[in-house]
């Protein structure tokens, strides 16, 4: 067995046949260069390193081609030493205890680039070029692991083109010069794309493994002026966040509620700016902060300052929020901040652990996390959250409010003044419900049936109560007003509830597998406290799917939606126009060019109609004789026409133009007339001769 293994290794290491195709080498070089450029664009390697590597790989490729028949021995030694050295460096670099997948990616990029550079000097055979192609695919994958937007697709397309070129050149080289036709290339490309698309549609979304640590990077945020304060208003970290006001309703990423208080009298004009992208195992509300004190028109926190600073190194282990119950399952989210936003650390439900690029974090009693850094473009942090998995049946069975501390219970049931009408309404809606969960659901259904969502409403006048105005006015409002009404109705029934603000999951990008959160995804909803399961999210205005979306289904929906937006009439006009152009061009190409060809075409058409098609081996004169033979004995029209055509074609005796026209006309009018007793049209001719 050992001998067999040695023999297999020896065979595998035998030098291959020298590869002479320059085009194949160029295609492989293109793949490598694109892969290095892709990694450089994601800052996985420095730009100077990338440029140097590109130059060296190009030089190495030229050197390999020049020495392909007799590669110098010292090159083999150099390649071996270089590869071993790069591997030793890589394992030494990633063997630190804190190494996770993201801390491996950059060294892996450097390792692959180094191997590609060193290997490029010793690529004598086709097999070595295939290795180069595979390594470039690996480098692209390492780059793709950190890519979070669709711009990476440009590199993927470029790399795919180079790789496809290399693969077809590989066949050309392997087959001694056989070239794939354009149709074959299109077919291969289409089949490859179709296979890739089929796999893409079938495979589930990638999951984020919980056994690795995640990336945390400070972006262009700067320091926050007030320790523990909420900042980031208008994108400036030094400027404290202000509650929304009618005078300044427009903010890029800063929601009006990401401040010390939430003014429910007006809704900000948030725009469609991409605020952040989230990689998560499942969709969820991205909670920013919660409010427990209702003041008639705005929400505030009962304990706004000071927040407790956590002085640890990343990852930060967060304390369990007051009154919360650790129940559910762990869920990882990585937040990639795209636009300057408030310095809130978002998370799903309650956060357990945070990887963050700072030495401390501020945590409020309700679990709100505040960063000491402004969250500008490029900031990245990861949160391990606790997500509830309580089912409706479990929540129905969990109705004992006594386990919440009396002070907390009082705060979560606090109302600024009695709401007799609201209480009466809530009681009438929930008259038949016995559990908290059923009461909440009944109120949500009532709100859904009797109110309307709209952002285009004027701000409430100062001093007006939002809930009274909404429930007993025209019942038109936006999410802050609707959720506040639900919270107040619940509190009027003695059920602990609070207002939560943050973002809905956003649209799922099936290519990057990231949830894209835009400024107008900012949202407010209600959290209701259940003794056995802690704070549970309830939303009367939006629905968040409970399972992660399938990339394939999402992509198909997006394609369907895009197709549905295509106007049918112009597209149909373009398709019909293109079809007409194709038909016209084919007709132009197929039509006879000379009078002789027209006469010949007429003879063949007439013969076909008479059931006597022209045989491949038949000359025109023979065919004309056969056609004449079908009619009267003295009729020799076709033979006469054929002799004129042959005299023109082979003897250069062209008749005058007038005669040509007359001949064409005569051929068009002439018919094949079978005399009585002639062989029927369907009588078998003699067997065709293949020429």
């Amino acid at each position, binding site marked *: 067995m050992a001998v067999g293994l040695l023999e297999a290794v020896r065979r595998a290491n035998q030098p291959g046949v020298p590869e002479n195709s320059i085009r194949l080498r160029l295609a492989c070089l293109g793949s490598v260069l694109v892969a290095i450029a892709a990694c450089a664009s994601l800052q996985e390697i420095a730009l100077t390193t990338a440029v140097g590597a590109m130059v060296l790989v190009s030089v190495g490729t030229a050197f390999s081609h020049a020495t392909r028949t007799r590669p110098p021995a010292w090159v083999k030694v150099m390649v071996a030493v270089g590869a071993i050295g790069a591997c030793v460096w890589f394992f030494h670099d990633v063997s630190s205890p804190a190494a996770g997948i993201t801390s491996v990616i950059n060294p892996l990029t450097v390792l692959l680039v180094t191997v590609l550079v060193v290997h490029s000097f010793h690529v004598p055979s086709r097999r070595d070029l295939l290795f180069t192609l595979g390594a470039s695919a690996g480098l692209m994958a390492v780059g793709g692991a950190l890519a979070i937007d669709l711009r990476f697709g440009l590199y*993927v397309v470029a790399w795919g083109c180079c790789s496809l070129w290399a693969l077809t050149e590989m066949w*050309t080289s392997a087959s001694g010069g056989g070239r*794939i036709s354009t149709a074959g290339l299109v077919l291969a490309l289409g089949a490859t794309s179709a296979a890739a698309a089929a796999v893409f549609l079938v495979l589930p979304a990638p999951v984020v493994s919980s056994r690795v640590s995640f990336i945390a990077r400070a972006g262009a945020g700067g320091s926050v002026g007030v320790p523990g304060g909420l900042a980031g208003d208008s994108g400036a970290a030094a400027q404290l966040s202000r509650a929304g006001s009618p005078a300044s309703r427009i903010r890029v990423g800063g929601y009006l509620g990401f401040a010390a208080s939430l003014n429910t009298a007006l809704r900000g004009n948030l725009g469609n700016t991409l605020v952040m992208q989230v990689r998560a195992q499942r969709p969820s509300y991205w909670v920013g902060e919660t409010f427990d004190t209702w003041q008639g028109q705005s929400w505030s926190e009962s304990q706004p300052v000071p927040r407790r600073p956590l002085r640890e190194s990343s990852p930060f282990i967060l304390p369990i929020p007051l009154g919360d119950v650790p129940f559910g399952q762990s869920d990882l989210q990585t937040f990639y901040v795209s636009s300057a936003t408030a310095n809130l650390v978002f998370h799903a439900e309650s956060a357990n652990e945070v990887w963050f690029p700072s030495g401390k974090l501020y945590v409020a009693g309700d679990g709100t996390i505040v960063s000491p850094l402004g969250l500008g473009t490029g900031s990245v942090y990861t949160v391990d959250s606790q997500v509830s998995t309580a089912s409706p049946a479990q929540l129905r069975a969990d109705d004992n409010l006594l386990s919440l501390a009396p002070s907390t219970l009082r705060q979560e049931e606090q109302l600024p003044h009695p709401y007799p009408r609201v209480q009466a309404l809530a009681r009438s809606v929930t008259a038949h419900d016995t559990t908290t969960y059923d009461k909440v659901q009944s109120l949500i259904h009532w709100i859904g049936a009797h109110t309307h969502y709209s952002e285009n409403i004027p701000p409430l006048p100062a001093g007006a109560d939002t809930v009274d105005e909404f429930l007993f006015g025209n019942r038109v409002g936006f999410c802050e007003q609707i959720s506040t009404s639900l919270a107040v109705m619940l509190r009027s029934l003695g059920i602990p509830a609070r207002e939560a603000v943050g973002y809905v999951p956003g649209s799922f990008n099936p290519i990057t597998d990231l949830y894209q959160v835009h400024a107008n995804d900012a949202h407010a909803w209600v959290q209701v406290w259940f003794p056995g399961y802690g704070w549970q999210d309830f939303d009367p205005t939006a629905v968040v799917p409970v399972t992660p979306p399938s990339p394939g289904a999402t992509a198909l929906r997006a394609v369907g939606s895009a197709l549905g937006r295509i106007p049918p009439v112009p597209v149909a006009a373009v398709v019909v126009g293109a079809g007409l152009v194709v038909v016209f061009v084919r007709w132009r190409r197929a039509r006879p060019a000379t009078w002789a060809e027209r006469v010949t075409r007429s003879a063949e058409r007439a013969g076909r109609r008479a059931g006597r098609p022209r045989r491949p081996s038949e000359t025109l004169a023979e065919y004309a004789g056969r056609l004449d033979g079908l009619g009267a004995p003295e009729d020799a029209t076709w033979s006469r026409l054929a002799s004129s055509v042959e005299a023109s074609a082979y003897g250069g005796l062209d008749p005058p133009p007038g005669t040509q026209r007359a001949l064409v006309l005569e051929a068009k009018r002439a018919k094949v007339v079978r005399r009585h007793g002639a062989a029927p049209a369907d009588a078998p001719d003699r067997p065709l001769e293949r020429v």
Partner: protein
Amino acid sequence: MVVGVLIVGLWWLVAHNAGSGWVQVLGDLVFGALLIGIAGPFVVATRALVTMRSAPGDGIAGRPVEVRVESRSRVRVRPVDPPGPEAFVGPTGRRGAVDGAITLVPLRRGVHHAVTLEIASAAPFGLQWWTKRLQLPLPAALHVSPRCGSAQPVPLRPDEGTGDVLDRPRSDVGLPRGVRPYVPGDARRLVHWRSTAHAGHVMVRELEQPAGEPVTITVELPEDREAAERVAEGALASVVGLLEGGVPVLLGTREPSGPVLAAVADRRGAGRRLARAVHGPGGATSAEREGAWR
């Protein structure tokens, strides 16, 4: 193919657990390329239509024989029976020649009515070769004569050594008997130009047949293939030696249809007879000889 499946599986495992959509998309592309690279050649090789275009009728064991085949798609062709080196056949471009030459190197004598070819393709990506066996009938049977071995000593005739017969006359020399119209196979030097000019078509001299008594060589091939090959090689050498010496030869062999005893005129004829010969006693009886002469 196994390596390809392993690569895709490993890639998907990494992509799925890395949580990155782009890695999975790239993996999908790699999967697509590998799938087409593996399955494409299967389709091409299965659909490849290779036809025989031309082939010679004679060959010699151990010597290359070139046949021309035609294929609409570029394929690698390796002759299996008779064996030969691999070659590529099919158009190299859109307007490339569809036919190409492949070389057969038959190892032993025999008659081939068809050749077995191994057709292979790795189109369109050159990643995986798929092969299929194909038997192509030859336009005419290919007679592979044995190699020319060592001639065996021919027994002396009773009158040899007495000085009465100094040399045997060549079979194509003799006394002119007259002229006759040319028939294919006649030697060029027998053309009688004066009669040709007179008659208007080619006339050749007709010679008296040599009066010498033919030598009968009976070939009995053993059952063992290698031993039979050696015997055939020796017989061919003997026949060729006798023919070159001008001695008419009667060759007795056993063919699949039965024993045959017939005259051979040249090396090619002898080679064809020996190519057809099978194990068993040759046709040396007087009755067979009579029949052969008829």
